[in-house]
């Protein structure tokens, strides 16, 4: 057990830090610390350019195998990459769904032809992806998918009909991976397929959802006889493919997310020192608790990433979402309480939020999306502790 990095890894750290310093300038300067959660709607065009800049430097998909255009970086180097990326204040990645979810899924489950077709667009930062899982009647009950896929015998293509919801970045994306029902008589996780659908076609309509922030990161996506370009796996394999993908969601990028959290906490500490909140005994406790929680989250992630045996990895990974989401939601409230009455003051009318206000409001979604805290507790109790499954109503 060791926390120090090797010389080679420290050199890698210097390399990425130097590249970011040299390239996060000029037109990209304004992107610093932008585009994170709650800020994802900002500077979409500039951030797309930034993706391609990263790709030019070879800094997209660093953890992917070299044969698919990645760097084949070790876990340690991926950790370093995400830490330095966030430390430099580089912007939220518009390409993260492709790089972190669609790509790894294709690498794991796709055919060679599919890999050749889709992976280069992700690596180059030119093609953006969104995720079509949730539906109006498939929230926590994710398997209750109603969207239908029908095979057109003449063209050999699948056509998609239905509605997805809470789709991040749908309005910026070129592709969507969609879970849809291939067997109309099936229920729950059986009879689903995993489809790759172009967003640039008449059968796809994107409608932004106005959130309590007044902004729209999330969308509804309607499919009316939309044509699927490909299916990953066989019809009926959709749930298996989609669940394999959820595993990727808990990957190394969580460390980058933590650095964003660190930036937020640093700002709160700075404000607390300036306005005297740092002297209030109750707020001191809460700030110290937030600091402790974030530090320990880092070591939880390190443990999760270091252990490849499966056992302990499972457990540390199972609690990860519940931990960060609850922690971040508390941080949002703490930010407001440290600011006191100033917390209410908008950046400007009609409803332009400050960064911390935006963070505070957005954190209320953290404990809902990607599996609510309550669903997480079910999963932890059932998979982590072997307790009986919840009874189902169907």
């Amino acid at each position, binding site marked *: 057990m060791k926390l120090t990095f090797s010389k080679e890894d420290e050199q890698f750290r210097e390399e990425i830090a130097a590249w970011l310093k040299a390239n996060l300038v000029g037109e990209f300067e304004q992107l610093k610390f932008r585009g994170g959660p709650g800020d994802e709607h900002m500077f979409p065009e500039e951030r797309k350019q930034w993706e391609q800049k990263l790709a030019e430097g070879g800094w997209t998909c660093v953890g992917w195998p070299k044969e698919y255009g990645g760097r084949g970086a070790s876990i340690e180097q991926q950790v370093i990459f995400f830490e330095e990326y966030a430390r430099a204040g580089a912007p939220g990645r518009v390409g993260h769904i492709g790089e972190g979810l669609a790509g790894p899924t294709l690498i794991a489950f796709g055919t060679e032809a599919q890999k050749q077709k889709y992976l280069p667009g992700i690596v180059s930062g030119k093609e953006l992806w969104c995720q079509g899982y949730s539906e109006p009647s498939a929230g926590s009950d994710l398997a209750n998918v109603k969207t239908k896929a029908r095979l057109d015998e003449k063209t050999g293509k699948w056509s998609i009909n239905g509605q997805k919801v809470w789709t991040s970045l749908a309005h910026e994306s070129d592709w969507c991976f969609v879970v849809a029902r291939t067997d109309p008589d099936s229920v729950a996780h059986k009879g689903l397929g995993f489809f790759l659908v172009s967003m640039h076609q008449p059968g796809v309509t994107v409608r932004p959802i106005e959130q309590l922030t007044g902004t729209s990161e999330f969308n509804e996506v309607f499919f009316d006889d939309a044509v699927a370009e490909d299916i990953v796996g066989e019809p009926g394999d959709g749930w298996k493919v989609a669940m394999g993908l959820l595993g990727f969601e808990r990957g190394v990028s969580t460390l980058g997310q933590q650095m964003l959290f660190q930036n937020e906490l640093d700002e709160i500490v700075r404000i607390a020192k300036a306005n005297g909140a740092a002297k209030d005994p109750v707020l001191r406790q809460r700030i110290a608790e937030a600091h402790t929680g974030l530090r320990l989250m880092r070591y939880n992630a390190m443990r999760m990433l270091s252990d490849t045996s499966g056992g302990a990895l499972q457990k540390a990974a199972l609690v990860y979402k519940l931990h960060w989401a609850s922690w971040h939601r508390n941080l949002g409230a703490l930010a407001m309480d440290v600011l006191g009455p100033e917390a209410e003051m908008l950046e400007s009318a009609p409803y332009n939020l400050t960064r911390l206000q935006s963070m505070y409001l957005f954190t209320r979604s953290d404990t809902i999306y990607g599996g609510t805290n309550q669903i997480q507790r079910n999963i932890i109790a059932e998979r982590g502790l072997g307790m*009986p499954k919840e009874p189902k109503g169907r």
Partner: protein
Amino acid sequence: MEFVFTDEQQMIRDTAEAFLQDVSTSEAVRAAMATDAGFDPALWERICTELCFQAITIPEEFGGMGLGYVELAAVLEQMGRFLLCSPFFSTVALGANALMVAGNDAQKAQYLTQIAEGSLTATLAYTGASAAKAGGQWGPEVVDATYTKAADGYVLDGAWRYVVDGHTAGLLLMAARQPGTCGQEGIALFAVPADTNGLSREWTPTMDQTRHLAAITAKQVTLPADALMCENAGKQLSRIIDLAKVAVAAEQMGGSQEILDRTVAYMQERVQFGRAIASFQALKHKTADMMLKCEVSRSAVYYAACVAQEFLSADGDAALAAELPEAAAMAKGYCSDTYFFNAGSAIQLYGGVGFTWEYDVHLYFKRAKSSELFLGNGAQQREQVAQMLLDGGE
């Protein structure tokens, strides 16, 4: 960066588990805790001669194994898990640590060698009655006893309380201050054989019977000059306390995990309303929270143990070693809260039988509180983190 046990560390952990599972049974714990000494001397001898756990961190030049704090934490975790009644914690986590941090070469050569060979038990005595002020204070400022220079040595005078195994230890590492000093100032550490004339030691029975505490009084006790470990030892004492906190946290984490596992096993058997109570969501969610806290505690302990390791080794990473006060406070604070939460929840989840003397739940519940209070509870640890984070001091 390898944040996972090496094969050797895993082996030490497994050895400790197998041994303690066998010898530290409920019957054995209950028998030992009811004695005045608070432990079974025959079992202590087996630990010292067959397993040599007491020698893990002692350098090889003094007959020890020269292994690290991670190995020690792995063993302490199992000891906490099985509520081992033993002078191990006092001798190693207090005594040996104090000698390694503040002892001179002659003292190390004499006493560490004796500890390593299993012929000497030891403990740290520093807390005076001041430790009970304001809900508990555990820094060097609570040293009440005084020392003065005499013709050919020192004269020790005063009282110590809450001394772990103070009534049985063969060697007392004692802190005293120059009259009229306060805080970290004017403190010296002495290595005092327990049979020194003028020392009186008394077992002070405690609510948690698995760890015995003592009160020690010194009435104008004359010490030879070579009893002095070091003067102006406030800083060294702080680091000794930090190392002890990491050790307590490891025990707490083991206890938190064990009481969770036992609770879940009981819930799988206990049937009400025609179902195992493990199937009720309200109860599952409680255990999920317990598991989350366990996992984060585990990360905290391993992190702090790695830092302690760097601190103690001559060629340790300086930046990591400097994190010791913060790492110790975070680990002790988080694990204290976790253990109390888990043990308290266990009584609730067991229901009525959790309230009986017959079931072991109360042993964990009581140990959780005593170890939470010892060296400072969660809020006190957070205040220390707040001081480092917000006040720019230690």
